[in-house]
């Protein structure tokens, strides 16, 4: 394995717009809102940015192709802007581009932006779209809940979990995220709910009910990254450092190889997690990781991801969840900001939003929802696609020495 980039890049500024149904904003104003916070946080002039990455998931319904919309919105100083699209893992991949540019020495200061304007489609949920000319002839263009719902039945069958137990654990995931989102002023959904509401909600894709699904939001999030040396020059005495970034893309094995993948877990996440822990020097993730932001597009996704990240034992996540292990006051909070479920899910921004929350928590700047025990190492997990074919991206950030 490559030697990795642990501690070679520091985050000096982050910004995140309010997420939600931003009827009176478009991608441009959302990016400006996030960037204003970010550049003020970094305390630099825009002229110091050497390169930028722009992540957008649904460009056709949104800003269109290329990096030009970012360069134009922020009037960037004649620098290169790379457009990134990697399903819902787009935000983390955008961050990865900026971090790698700094780690390589090609850039001193780089910007990663993620944005999505989804509330111009005319309906809730993600837009239906082509997945390529070949796929469209034989693939199933199911809805996102339909694709993710399919983990549930094989998971139940493999681990001998009853329908009711699994449904209740999934419901706990959503109840917990709603409680967390209620304490986040930037969150899309800020209403606490009870478990009965989740259990009795209309079915979207069996067994996922309405409250097992995150919605879609408008929003933008961004990061300015640089070297630890420049971070200190900018006055950061205890900078947030990138410990690892790992991204794994399905090669068709899950989709095409009969008898291989059994449909109960995310193959890519397991691979990415093992590599991320190795890169960051984490040997006991259940003990060492203080905070988790994961891709809770659906409650079942968060549930199995707890196992794929090797925090819960395989087949046991549903018990940890019901025990409150991942609650805001539990052993390892997951989605302390409300997650995709309640903070919101503007596709291209989500990976950066997760890092934003971890960045705030590590610095003790998370306000009412701040974890009190001084978290030092935080993981974010950003997933795009469907269980059977996806892109999984993990970022671990932490304080010096963590």
């Amino acid at each position: 394995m490559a030697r990795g980039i642990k501690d070679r890049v520091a985050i000096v500024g982050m910004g995140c717009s309010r997420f939600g149904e931003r009827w009176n904003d478009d991608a441009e104003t959302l990016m400006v809102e996030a960037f204003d916070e970010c550049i003020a946080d970094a305390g630099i002039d825009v002229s110091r940015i050497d390169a930028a990455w722009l992540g957008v998931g649904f460009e056709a319904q949104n800003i269109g192709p290329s990096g030009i919309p970012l360069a134009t919105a922020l009037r960037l100083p004649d620098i290169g802007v790379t457009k990134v699209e990697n399903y819902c893992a787009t935000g983390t991949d955008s961050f990865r581009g900026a971090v790698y540019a700094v780690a390589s020495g090609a850039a001193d200061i780089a910007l990663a932006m993620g944005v999505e304007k989804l509330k111009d489609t005319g309906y809730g949920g993600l837009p239906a779209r082509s997945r390529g000319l070949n796929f469209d002839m034989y693939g199933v263009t199911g809805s996102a809940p339909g694709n993710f719902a399919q983990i549930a039945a094989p998971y139940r069958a493999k681990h001998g979990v009853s329908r009711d137990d699994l449904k209740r654990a999934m419901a706990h995931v959503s109840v917990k995220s709603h409680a967390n989102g209620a304490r986040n002023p930037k969150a899309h959904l800020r209403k606490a709910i009870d478990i009965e509401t989740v259990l009795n909600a209309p079915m979207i894709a069996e067994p996922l009910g309405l409250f097992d699904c995150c919605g879609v939001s408008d929003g933008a999030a961004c990061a300015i990254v640089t070297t630890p040396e420049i971070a200190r020059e900018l006055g950061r005495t205890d900078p947030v450092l990138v410990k690892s970034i790992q991204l794994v893309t399905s090669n068709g094995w899950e989709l095409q190889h009969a008898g291989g993948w059994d449909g109960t877990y995310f193959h890519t996440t397991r691979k990415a997690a093992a590599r991320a822990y190795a890169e960051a020097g984490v040997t006991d993730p259940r003990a060492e990781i203080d905070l988790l932001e994961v891709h809770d597009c659906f409650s079942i996704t968060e549930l199995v991801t707890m196992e794929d990240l090797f925090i819960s034992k395989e087949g046991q996540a549903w018990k940890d969840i019901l025990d409150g292990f991942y609650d805001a006051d539990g052993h390892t909070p997951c989605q302390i900001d409300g997650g995709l479920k309640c903070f919101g899910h503007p596709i291209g921004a989500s990976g950066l939003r997760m890092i934003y929350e971890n960045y705030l928590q590590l610095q003790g700047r998370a306000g009412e929802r701040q974890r009190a025990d001084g978290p030092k190492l935080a993981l974010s997990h950003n997933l795009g696609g469907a269980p059977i074919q996806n892109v999984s991206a993990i970022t671990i950030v932490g304080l010096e020495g963590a």
Partner: protein
Amino acid sequence: MSDFGILSCGVYLPRGRLDRSAIYNANRWFAPGLKSLARGHRAIANWDEDAVTMAVEAARTCLDGRDRAAVEGLTLASVTHPFADRANAGIVKEALNLSDGIVALDAGGSMRAATSALRDALEGSRTRLCIGSDLRKARPASEAELVQGDGAAAILVGRGTPIARLVASHSVTVDFVDHFRASGESFDYQWESRWVREEGHLAILADAVQALLAEGKVAAGDIDHVVLPIAAGGTVKAIARKLGLKDGAVVDTLSAEIGDTGTGHPLLLLASALERASLGERILVTGFGQGADVLLFEATEAIADHRPQRTVAACVEDGVADDNYMRFLFHRGLIDLERGIRAELDQKQPGTTLYRKRTAVLGLVGSRCTVTGTVQFPPSAISVDPNGRKQGTQEDYPLADRTARIVSYTADALGYSPDPPTYYGTLDFDGGGRLVTEFAEVGPDDVEVGRAMRMVFRIKAEDEQRHFTKYFWKAVPLNEGEA
């Protein structure tokens, strides 16, 4: 004796059986005269079926256990071909994974297109598949809506061990317009039924039968099974009386529970007769439309071994009663429901990509690595097997007739479907190969991890802007006893 004749037959009836009283009850305020027809059911194709998909299913049963390389020709008779200019028979050929070197022809224009095609095949020299298939559209509150049914039947004619041989044939052609439909129109225009009965069925058709019997010196009373594809029971009885047929010789027209399935109906009833016939028995088949075809068969020794995988009786039995007339109207395009913005997804099909992938898409042909044995769908340059990375080693591996088992599934109520929720999931084929596809003919109790499924050829989507039908394979539950 000649080794040329009918080698096998196969039928397909969609499972939906619309309650005729549901049709009548919705329309009686307007058309109370339909009451006499408001009994029993009619077969209705699902939203994702058409004359081509039903033809494929009938043909698959017909070819079950046979060497498909022996098929030299294919005729698809229909008056409801989905395409006016694209060989519908060519789509069936691809779905059946038949050789590129066959003759494939669409026959149509008349309700006797299938009997004419059958006669041509029997008097030719090729081994030829004759299929009749129709999904007819009738106006709400019409008699046709109640009387018709959807379905398909296939007869394989050729060299081999025939189960029946043609003894005599007779055809007449006269421009008798009992009903018509101009090109591009949706609905038939029907003339008075009394005239059709008196001058059509009892004159043109009955006379043609008598002419054949006279030429062949066969007494009407010596015929064991008579196919009269006429929906009106009174007319059938009148013909039987006029011709002097023996009691019980007329093959059940399936009017009570299926309806008149159009061009394929004579073949469907012939298949029914062959299931019951024994050595030496005579079967008379008629087709009516701008004249008549009459074909006389004799069952051979091989009839004793004729055990179709799916019999007509089994297909009739395997119906699911349905009283949802609104859904039927919607699926036929007779009412325009609000489908929402999600239904607007462009389904444009480039001709180039379909041509390149035609065996995979239309034939469900995957591939097997000749070195590692790994089976996959679709084929690719580099094998999917992570332990046996091989390039350029794959050979064709048909999957359509293999049993598959559910790995995962869902019922999706969010994405647009003409029949929500959409069931789909991942399947592993016995013998290798994995496919994510939609399920058809399922409800909540039909899906579970490990459940055995079989593949069927269906409509995947319609390009409503350019009027192109996209076909692919879906999974239906495998019933006990089916292979």
